[in-house]
């Protein structure tokens, strides 16, 4: 089986971000970036499937500017076999990404695509779903457990949904998006970090993949949420009641 894992380079989970003064976006210069945590979980799951001998090859793909290559290298350092980088300087939203990934999936003849459920910079949670629709493949999203039955060529996926856990079985090839509890990603160890430098990353672009990018959105304004007012300490129950009744007017 060949696994394709899509990874995204995002602002680091712990980085403090600021909105640009002209409100056109977030200040990204000199901000630390890293692989989207959910994408990391997807890479880890792919590597585990390879270790279980379910998958033969793990290919990692990322869409973005030149710096996306760093993210691909991280995945290679974790143990992925090859990389593919779709070079574009445009900031793309899920539909365009899904179109590009679909083209890569067809080109690679992948049997299973793993993605993070959402990226922590835009929280769209759309790419995996759109990708499945474009490929006309089944999808199982928010996976917290994944089992592949090679004999029947099906995947058994436990999904985290609002009401609890849902288990579904789908045929392969399929698109799976990962949720937090699926696994704990490994640290990239030195031997693998060094090997990763020699692993190939194929250079691709939208034209070569035959994808026309649509510009369907225009960002109007980006602003910070209103600052929360601080709380106050009250000195007695009577004072609390008074404030609830007369100031907050909730009683």
């Amino acid at each position: 089986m060949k696994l394709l894992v899509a990874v995204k380079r995002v602002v680091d989970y712990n980085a403090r971000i600021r909105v640009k003064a002209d409100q056109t976006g977030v200040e990204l210069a000199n901000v630390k970036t890293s692989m989207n945590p959910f994408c990391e979980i997807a890479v880890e799951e792919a590597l585990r499937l390879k270790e279980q001998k379910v998958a033969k090859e793990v290919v990692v793909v990322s869409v973005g500017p030149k710096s996306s290559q760093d993210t691909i290298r991280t995945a290679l350092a974790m143990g992925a076999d090859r990389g593919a980088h779709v070079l574009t300087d445009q900031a793309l939203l899920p539909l365009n990404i899904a179109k590009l990934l679909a083209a890569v999936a067809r080109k690679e003849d992948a049997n299973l695509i793993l993605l993070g459920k959402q990226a922590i910079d835009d929280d769209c949670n759309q790419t995996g779903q759109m990708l499945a629709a474009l490929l006309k493949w089944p999808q199982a999203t928010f996976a917290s457990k994944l089992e592949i039955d090679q004999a029947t060529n099906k995947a058994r996926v436990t999904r985290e949904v609002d009401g609890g856990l849902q288990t579904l079985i789908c045929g392969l090839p399929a698109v799976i998006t990962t949720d937090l509890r699926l696994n704990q990603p490994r640290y990239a160890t030195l031997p693998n970090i060094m090997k990763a430098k020699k692993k190939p990353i194929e250079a691709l672009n939208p034209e070569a993949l035959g994808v026309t990018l649509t510009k369907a959105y225009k960002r109007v304004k980006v602003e910070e949420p209103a600052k929360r007012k601080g709380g106050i300490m009250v000195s007695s129950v009577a004072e609390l009641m008074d404030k609830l009744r007369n100031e907050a007017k909730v009683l």
Partner: protein
Amino acid sequence: MLARRAWPRASSHIILSKLVRNAQTAAATPRRDEYAAISDRDIAFFLDVLGDRGVITDPDALQPLNRDWIGKYEGSSRLALKPQNTEQVSQILRHCNANRIAVVPQGGNTGLVGGSVPLFDEVLIMTGAMNKVISFDPVLGMLTCEAGCVLEQLDRHVGEQGHTMPLDLGAKGSCQIGGNVSTNAGGLRYLRYGSMHGNVSGLEVVLADGTILDLMSTLRKDNTGYDLKQLFIGGEGTLGIITKVAMLCPVKPASVQVAYLAVPTFQHAQQVFQKAKQHLGEILSAFEFLDHPSLIMTLKHLPNIKNPLPDIQTPIYLVVETSGSNLEHDFGKLEVFLEEAYNDEMIADGTIAQDSSQQASIWNLRESISEGLRHAGAVYKYDLSLPPNDMYKLVEEMRSRMKHLPVTVVGYGHMGDSNLHLNISPSMTRRSCPTSNHLCMSGQPARRGASVPSMGWVR
């Protein structure tokens, strides 16, 4: 009057071994009967100066203040005071001095050697209510603040203006800057930023008789007169209570890299350190080590701690951190260094943190060893400065001497500063532990020219 455990800061091995021998004699220990007992008149005075909120007499509220973080030492103070400003501290001390009332200054109460809790029923003077940041000059990097500010909050505050505090330690979420200065805290970045003696630019201190000493110079270079503030840095509250601090903060590094390495022996660790200094030189900001037993102890007692290298087991592990201004440059240097060390077989395996979560996770492991040990039970803690070659030999020797006892001997610490934290963890409850095991300790560190660097002396 200030009653403290009268241990001088030992820096010579002769003093150390003498101290050990005198540890049990009355001459070295302050006695309760030298000081007065608190009366209602005193409490009335304090209420008058501090108001209701500033006087604590409730036994339940006093219990955690009387006991140290390890849970090994417990005083019996019946009164804790929370002054809001320097003037109030001055009035309290003047009154106590005039009436021979013993006091104990207390900040975050995170100390590991029982220095922040009363011996008997001394009055606790808490600095926590004096927690205002006074100013920060981003050009010079000069922070002025009150002594009760929590270290982590200060780091966040100066972080917003592109700077960082020059010290960092596991207790940062609770420890207060006044206490850090009083104990001349070292910490994880001592290697890079040096000691409090260099970073503290000024202090405001209240002396035992209530005199307010204004040594708050915020000048980068000030050679006028005697540098009196140096006496209070590391003075452990014996000469006065620090109420304000002026500290020089370095610029926050744009790029921080953390690597976790598994090395076959301590000798290899030293070779790695030398190579790290050569390759990483000016960007090296921390070089810590921990041994396998401390890793196991921490993983066992703290389930949220992850093992970065679960597939390998070696006697010694290292945490290496670089801090610099350029990501590609620093990462490149680190990769070259690690590749060379790996190919020369100085390290068996290792990992470079790929994002800030992994960085935090690796540091969390190193910083949680103390907590892991605490969960295991009582701990005998020794903070020792030793010549690099002897650092781990001491741990090995203690381990072999105590192999017939139900104890685990662990060693970890700041390799870059030649500072070993030797911890002996007996598998018995805190209460049944003997209060002193110096029979086995005495002479050992002294023979190796050890001294007590940063934690303070432990009973």
